[in-house]
């Protein structure tokens, strides 16, 4: 299952969605600012409501810019996932995104996975159980 979600004409961030056995993988590319967050929110929430996954992985490797609107966006999705009873994780945030996450202390509230020198590392509340879930998936 592979869908391309094209947003409005303003070439705002693009979301690619992939769903397999309870895991919804969303890959965001482009800028995440206040303007773009609105359409991003609609796209991402639509996917979450549609698939009702057990785990949402938000891949950030292709994010080119993010400001505090991105933090609000993550917080909102985290709350939504919590309400729906699914886990929510940020994957592979670029260094600039990571800086803003740690500045706000959000890297401790949310689970952030980062591949570091070929080794997967997690921070946040479910860091320890993170590896377990990865194994379950396989």
């Amino acid at each position: 299952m592979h869908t391309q979600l094209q947003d409005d004409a303003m070439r705002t961030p693009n979301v690619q969605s992939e769903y397999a056995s309870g895991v919804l993988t969303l890959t965001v590319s482009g800028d995440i600012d206040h303007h773009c967050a609105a359409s991003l929110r609609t796209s991402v929430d639509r996917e979450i409501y549609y698939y009702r996954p057990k785990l949402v992985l938000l891949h950030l490797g292709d994010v080119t810019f993010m400001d505090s609107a991105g933090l609000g966006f993550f917080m909102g999705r985290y709350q939504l996932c919590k309400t729906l009873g699914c886990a929510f994780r940020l994957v592979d945030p670029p260094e600039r995104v990571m800086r803003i996450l740690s500045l706000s202390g959000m890297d401790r509230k949310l689970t952030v996975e980062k591949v570091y020198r070929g080794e997967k590392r997690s921070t946040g509340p479910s860091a320890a159980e993170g590896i377990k879930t990865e194994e379950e998936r396989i």
Partner: protein
Amino acid sequence: MKASQKKIVVNQMKTEFRAISENERLARTLVCALLAPLDVTVDELADVRCAVSEAVTNSIVHGYGGGCADRTVYILTTLYADRSVKIVIRDRGVGIADVDAAMEPLFTTDKSGERSGMGFAIMKTFMDSVRVRSTPGLGTTVELKKTFAPLAAQETAEDVQTQTLFAEERAQEAFV
């Protein structure tokens, strides 16, 4: 105060645009474009880009209540000879009654849980100084300042490289 009056201005840009959220990208891109000739580091540029985005977003979202096509956001960007920049972002929006409270990290007027309240905290972290003046009903002015690292470090690295090259050439010549 005298020191700042003596500062030599090398370039200046006056920008004004409609207070709509589409222009957040435009604003940060324009300011960063003006900084390009200074040859600042990628990180320094990203700092400014993010801080400008925060201030402009504040003007549009809070000053003008989420955006207003017939209102305007003004930016005055000044580059100085000492590799510093001053960016003044001004709106004629609703203003902030308690600036100190608004500048506290995590302070937000938002109830939906979609906003972080980290705007001013990010500006403070990424810039050298942030000054806010606001009058309820008249608008808000945010003044951001940053001095960039001197180019010396970069030049030194190049010098070392060149010197090494010369030394190698000389060694080869001596060998021949």
